[in-house]
């Protein structure tokens, strides 16, 4: 029935795991005084290979492996490529911005790569137990990375806050999984979807849906569960935030898509208004709070909450148009957010010497390249045409209108206008002439190295491509959306697979 060896279905994850192990082994065998920078290149090459492997998975027929625990489909490939791309940029960024004397660089790269294993697996898992383990892998990696600046008080504080609240949220998700197992007797996504319409204990299913939504919405930092975001982003090192604010969120959104569209498609009348409310709340709370921030990273943290809201608006869209719009938005958001945090890293430095908006004043005169890039990414975050942010918002709100949620789209548009205020505030600060009479410490001019240059180039190219020729990516997102929408075809396989599966 299924001639594809199981290993091909998890090839990117296998490559990433091996890369992580390789980084660890090489790190341990290098003598102590040697620079650890080469390890970053090893990690980058491994991630690139994993990206290629994910693209190669497109050639495989849609199906599941390992007793219907993982799936490959255009949907999973879309997110694999996205996550590997983000991780690659994050590694390149870290290569040039981690201070040469910083501690545990080998572990840093290994953690990033292992975290990528969890995130990739999260998007392709169709078994809730595997979902939980994958989520924990990606979470623990990010908890540790968030606390990487041990010498300042902020780093450990951010890590502990993130860890405690994150574990709490994961517990909610786990409780939801337990209840859904109680209601349907299985943890396999397609089997659950088939069992739910006939499940007698409807209230148990509802409780499971609510608990799982709480867990996932925490991970994407949507509004009532967003409190951790600004503190964590402020305390974590900027290269980590570039990763933290995009890759785990992309994976969590993929999980959310899978949960609401594949596990609970029959309960649409319930989760749709719920997500409507969360979307409105996220946009409004995020934007209003961002207006008052003086710290750039805190402002961007609130902006990422608002963007989670715009993204959730796409969930109001009907069927595959909503999924495609959401997937596209994730890609656009990831490209511009990684880019802007890369710029912030370069300007503020690893230790956040210049964290405030006023410190960015005159950036375009100090470093024309970085200033221009900052303004470009801000324009994309505002949603100005010819950038990825524009089409992301456009498709998201179009999907919402198509699904009948006109008010949601209107609130979203109003919020975008509100958001422009604080983005432009930062952009104007960067374009202003620097104040000469300060006489204070000379502001260092940020250096742009080869690796970080490549990372920036990659982010700019992605944002531009998504903004000028979005057709290709949108097409891929739609292909993914269709595979996510068709559970019956894939659901036949598990039974067959069980018999023909002695060992991998």
């Amino acid at each position, binding site marked *: 029935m299924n001639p594809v060896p199981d290993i091909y279905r*998890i090839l990117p994850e296998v490559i990433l*795991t091996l890369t992580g192990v390789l980084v*660890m082994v090489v790190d341990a065998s290098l003598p*102590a*005084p040697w620079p650890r920078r080469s390890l970053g290149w090893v990690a980058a090459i491994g991630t690139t290979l994993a990206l290629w492997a994910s693209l190669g998975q497109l050639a495989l027929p849609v199906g599941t492996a*390992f*007793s219907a*625990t*993982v799936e490959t489909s255009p949907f999973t490939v879309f997110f694999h490529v996205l996550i590997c791309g983000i991780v690659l940029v994050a590694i390149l960024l870290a290569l040039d911005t981690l201070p*040469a*004397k*910083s*501690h*545990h660089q080998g*572990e*840093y790269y*290994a*953690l990033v790569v*292992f*975290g990528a*294993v*969890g995130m990739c*697996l999260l998007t392709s898992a169709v*078994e809730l*137990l*595997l979902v939980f*383990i*994958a989520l*924990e*892998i990606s979470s*623990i*990696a990010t*908890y*540790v990375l968030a*606390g*990487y600046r*041990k010498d300042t008080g902020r780093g450990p504080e951010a*890590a502990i806050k993130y860890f405690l609240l994150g574990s709490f949220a994961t517990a909610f998700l786990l409780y939801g999984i337990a209840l859904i197992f*109680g*209601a349907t007797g299985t943890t396999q996504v397609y089997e659950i979807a088939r069992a739910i319409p006939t*499940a*007698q*204990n409807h*209230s*148990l299913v509802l*409780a499971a849906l609510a608990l799982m939504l709480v867990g996932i919405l925490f991970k994407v930092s949507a509004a009532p569960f967003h409190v951790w975001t600004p503190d964590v982003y402020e305390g974590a090192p900027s290269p980590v935030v570039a990763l933290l604010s995009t890759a785990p969120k992309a994976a969590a959104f993929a999980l959310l898509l899978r949960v609401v569209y594949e596990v609970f498609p029959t309960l649409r009348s319930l989760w749709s208004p719920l997500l409507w409310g969360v979307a409105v709340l996220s946009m409004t709370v995020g934007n209003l709070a961002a207006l008052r921030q003086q710290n750039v990273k805190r402002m961007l943290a609130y902006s990422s909450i608002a963007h989670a809201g715009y993204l959730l608006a796409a969930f109001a869209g009907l069927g595959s148009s909503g999924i495609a719009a959401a997937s596209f938005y994730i890609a656009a958001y990831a490209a511009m957010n990684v880019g802007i945090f890369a710029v912030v890293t370069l300007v503020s430095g690893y230790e956040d010497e210049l964290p405030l908006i006023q410190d960015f004043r005159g950036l375009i005169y100090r470093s024309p390249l970085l200033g221009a890039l900052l303004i470009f990414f801000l324009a994309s975050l505002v949603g100005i045409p010819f950038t990825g942010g524009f089409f992301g918002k456009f498709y998201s709100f179009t999907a919402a209108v198509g699904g009948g949620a006109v008010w949601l789209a209107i609130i979203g548009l109003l919020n975008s206008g509100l958001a422009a205020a604080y983005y432009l505030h930062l952009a104007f600060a960067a374009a202003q002439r620097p104040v000469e009479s300060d006489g204070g410490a000379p502001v260092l001019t940020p250096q742009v190295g080869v690796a970080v240059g490549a990372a920036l180039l990659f982010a700019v190219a992605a944002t531009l491509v998504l903004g000028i020729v979005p057709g290709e990516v949108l097409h891929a997102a739609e292909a993914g959306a269709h595979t996510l929408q068709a559970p019956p075809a894939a659901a036949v396989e598990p039974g067959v697979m*069980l018999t023909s*599966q002695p*060992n*991998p």
Partner: protein
Amino acid sequence: MHLILFIVFAGLCLAGAVNLLLQSHPISSALSLIVVMVSLAVLYLLLGAEFLAAAQVIVYAGAIMVLFTFVVMLLNAGREERTRGSYAARLVGFPAVAVILGIIATVILKAQGLGSAGLRDDITSTQELSAVLFTKLLLPFEVTSVLILIAILGAVALARHGDGEGTPGK
């Protein structure tokens, strides 16, 4: 006989859990947590899940709780301090817990399709458990190794002194 055992250990478990919350000294709390863990293990045993019971005693009551008490004693943690915040948390927290417990209990009691599990039924034998673990759930089982690896890696990165001069931490 089974019913008596159930009542005794379920009561012990509940008493331990309540005591855990009421005690203000960390050691007393940790010790009552051990009571909870062990009585849960007995409940699992009554349900015929002997492997789970053994794992519960060895892993939770044994390894984890020993570590717990060890750390508490090592840090020489004093009594919990009661602040205004903790008073407010108590005022809001206990009713909130009661409400949530009530909701969950009604959901479970009203649920229709749940089969009733008789005491001493052999529901999951160790054999069945391992068969599932090593065939159907092989991939999650293997992926757990990455999870553990990353936890160790994280602990090393966060806990060990590494100031770039190659000085070992301890």
